[in-house]
């Protein structure tokens, strides 16, 4: 089975949860042995793992240029020069009018989330047309709204079933005040999709209710985590009994509800003094949060170490007594699972998708700062409860694997390949045994 996948992020270049999820899904599928994935990235680094075929969208030509094999061979990142020539044979229109074409006839991508994102999305979709014409595949799988137009385009060209993966919706990002352009892109992608994979039931309901999709073609496809590498497992725990650390880790933006964390912190600090609050991450609300902490007079207990990368993230979990994710609306939220792997108990908002598959976490409403403070306090003061959550959390999260997610996605693919449409009820029946 050949899958053409469109994605925006992939490790080792990580901007957010999307990269991790894309990696997990492709890896989970690759373990089945008979799934060949072609993954299209706007700007790969060339250091991606080799279990899938990476296509570098920055080096797929959309305008014919007379280039020599020897000249470009050394410049290719991702796919090979042979692929380049094959793609060149499938240019379907004259795109010479476009600005920004390089000497290879390709459109460059900045990677990540630049300010001209909408142009990049459009370019991505144009290039997808070339790919859809030159590649052989059975299924199209598009991750996140940035790649939906590309997926839809590929479906139009090839007539193959389209699967879109909703990692987040604009309703989550904007607390309900959606950007009409983004909404229309999302809605268009969903309308054309044959199967909509949502990372949680929460997201699935948003898709059904806000995007008016048929519940039958929407499926909740929860994420998972990869087991910690030895490097990370061996990070010693630096918890200190005399001083507890409560951690927030993630982008400091409206969606993640950082202000509720500060409010709860204030309530805890009104009562106790041996607790520190760590605010790891960066984002547009960071300065506002520092101001808020200062205005409450708890700035000496709140720390803002900034964006954490790679190993730092795990060091942060290992040093923490409690991990808090107060998201106002979190489609899934992989961070709590990672924290649990490190044995760090989590408090998550009930508005987080990952809560649907986790039992050994404390769930509170994001706005219920009293409950949040209460949970923080008891985890910091009650060693038994901490131990219970920590031990059981590790056990629980170890059972959530990408392999199982891969099998579930495979079930969706099978349905789509067999008859071209998808039914969620049949899917639920079929995956009962994948627990």
């Amino acid at each position, binding site marked *: 089975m050949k899958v053409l996948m469109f994605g925006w992020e992939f490790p080792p270049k990580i901007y957010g949860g999307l990269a991790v999820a894309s990696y997990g899904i492709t890896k989970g599928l690759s373990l089945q042995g008979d799934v060949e994935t072609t993954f299209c990235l706007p700007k790969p680094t060339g250091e991606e793992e080799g279990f899938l075929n990476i296509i570098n969208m920055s080096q797929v030509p959309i305008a014919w240029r007379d280039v020599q094999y020897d000249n470009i061979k050394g410049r290719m990142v991702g796919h090979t020069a042979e692929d380049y020539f094959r793609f060149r044979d499938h240019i379907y229109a004259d795109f010479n009018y476009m600005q920004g074409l390089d000497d290879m006839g390709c459109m460059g991508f900045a990677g990540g989330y630049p300010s001209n994102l909408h142009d990049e999305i459009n370019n991505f979709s144009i290039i997808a047309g070339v790919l859809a014409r030159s590649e052989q595949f059975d299924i199209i799988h598009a991750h996140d709204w940035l790649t939906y137009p590309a997926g839809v385009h590929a479906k139009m060209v090839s007539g193959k079933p389209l699967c879109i993966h909703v990692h987040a919706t604009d309703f989550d990002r904007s607390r309900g005040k959606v950007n009409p352009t983004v909404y229309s892109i999302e809605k268009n992608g969903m309308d054309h999709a044959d199967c909509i994979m949502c990372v949680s039931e929460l997201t699935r309901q948003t898709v059904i209710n806000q995007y008016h999709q048929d519940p039958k073609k929407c499926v909740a496809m929860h994420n998972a985590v990869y087991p910690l590498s030895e490097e990370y497992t061996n990070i010693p725990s630096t918890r200190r009994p005399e001083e507890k650390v409560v951690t927030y880790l993630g982008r400091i933006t409206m969606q993640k509800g950082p202000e509720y964390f500060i409010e709860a912190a204030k309530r805890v600090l009104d009562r106790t003094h041996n607790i520190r609050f760590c605010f790891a991450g960066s984002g547009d609300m960071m300065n506002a949060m520092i101001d808020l902490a200062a205005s409450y007079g708890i700035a000496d207990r709140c720390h803002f170490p900034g964006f954490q990368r790679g190993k730092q993230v795990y060091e942060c979990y290992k040093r923490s007594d409690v991990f808090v994710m107060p998201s106002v609306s979190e489609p899934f939220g992989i961070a709590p699972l990672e924290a649990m792997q490190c044995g760090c108990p989590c408090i998550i908002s009930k508005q987080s998708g990952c809560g649907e598959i986790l039992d050994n976490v404390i*769930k509170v409403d994001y706005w219920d700062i009293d409950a949040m403070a209460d949970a923080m306090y008891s985890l910091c003061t009650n060693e*038994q409860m901490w131990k219970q959550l920590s031990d059981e959390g590790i056990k629980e999260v170890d059972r959530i694997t990408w392999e199982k997610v891969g099998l579930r996605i495979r079930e969706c693919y099978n349905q789509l390949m067999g008859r071209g449409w998808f039914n969620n009820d049949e899917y639920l029946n079929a995956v009962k045994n994948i627990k």
Partner: protein
Amino acid sequence: MKTICLYFEIHQPVHLKRYRFFDIGADHYYYDDYENERAITETAERSYIPALKTMLEMTETYGKYFKVAFSLSGVGIELLEDYAPEVIELLQELSKTGCVEFLAEPYSHGLSSLANEEVFMEETKRQCKKIKELFGQTPKVLRNSSLIYSDEIGALAGRMGFKGMIAEGAKHVLGWKSPHFVYSCAHNPKVSLLLRDYKLSDDISLRFNDSSWSEYPLMSDRYADWIAQLPQEEQVINIFMELCALGIFQPLSSNILEFFKALPAACKERGIEFATPSEIVGKTKAVAAMDMPEPVSWNDEERDTSCWLGNGMQREAFSKLYQEAGRIMVCQDRRIKQDWDRLQASNNFRYMTTKPMSVNMIRGFYDSPYDAFTNYMNILGDFIKRVQDLFPIEVENDELNALYTTIHNQGKEIETRDHEISQLRARLSKLEGAVADKKEEKVPAKKAPAKKAAAPKAAPAKKEAAPKAEPVKEEKVEAPKAEPAKKTPAKKAAAPKAAAPKKAPAAKKTTKK
């Protein structure tokens, strides 16, 4: 002849309110009054009242043939008194029929039997007293909260003077043995054990209304048949359940009460009797000792204590709570005592279980075991603080124990003195009696016919009966006085000894009439 022993538990937990850690030290009221009222009225209306009315009806229909036993936790009684006194009234009415026995149980419906003997004995005695006050019966058979039983608890019951205990007929303990016999405690052969037949009990309390069950719908005829068809030598069938089973676990619409109403008739046809636990304990000899070194309960598939003390949090809460036992036993503060009872209730621990959801598992308003634990520990934190304010933490446990022993000894001293006083009084009255006896030896005989004449008069006018009964009682008191009075002279001379006891029963007979 086969005997059915029916027993129902009546208990409702006191619901705790949402208590945040910032309430610690500021708010000393821990209960959700609204929920308590709602829960108890609902249970009373949907289950207790209709069920008890049915039983009352059954005692009328079947007279003394139908027997049933109840046990009420003290905490539950308090709730019923506050919000549903009609349930207590119904029970009092039932008690008057003579077909009902009340059992002893720890006042709090807690786990003190696993933690602290002193606490357990104290609260069981307190519950017995309460039962005596309300229903005029002194419980003779003990049932522990949720039927928790182990050899040690059995021995403890023996020391407290109970003749029997009821326990779970757990498969892993019984093995090949049948629960349809009376067993005895391994540590004290004087304590008989009645073991619950979980199959027959659960047929009613869990499966009665389950249409997917192969025996659905269950009729009393068939149920009685099952009992009648048990092997000849299996004589005692113990059917124990919560009273909530009738009406809440199995809705009234399932006609469960009709099933019960018809059960005695069906049993009578097949020659099956009903009896209360103490009747069975009194007349049936134990066949063997039953070893139960580990505590066994009627909860969950495991039938052990894992649903209260299965995880670290539960054990932590449990040990924190009972650490204060010593201080609380000394304490005289009424509110602290009441909070202590309510916090001990096993339900609080049950909410914290992390076991996969089991039958009838209700977590109250808690989202998760962690939520339940947090709330309970916050309350416990405040409670412990209050207790320690009374008895500062600097007061060493040894000191406290010494204090406690003093009080305990004082209590004992008072007891022995009371005993002495009563003995002296008895001797005094004996002597007085002896004097009186000599003066008018034949007076009681003359009085008796006079009473006889009074009795028929009392019958038509009931109101008069009460005051007229009093002199009869007085007579009863007099009679034993007369008896030893004759013994006192007998002590010195052996010869008239034989004559004296013979006279005594004769005197009793006359008074009884």
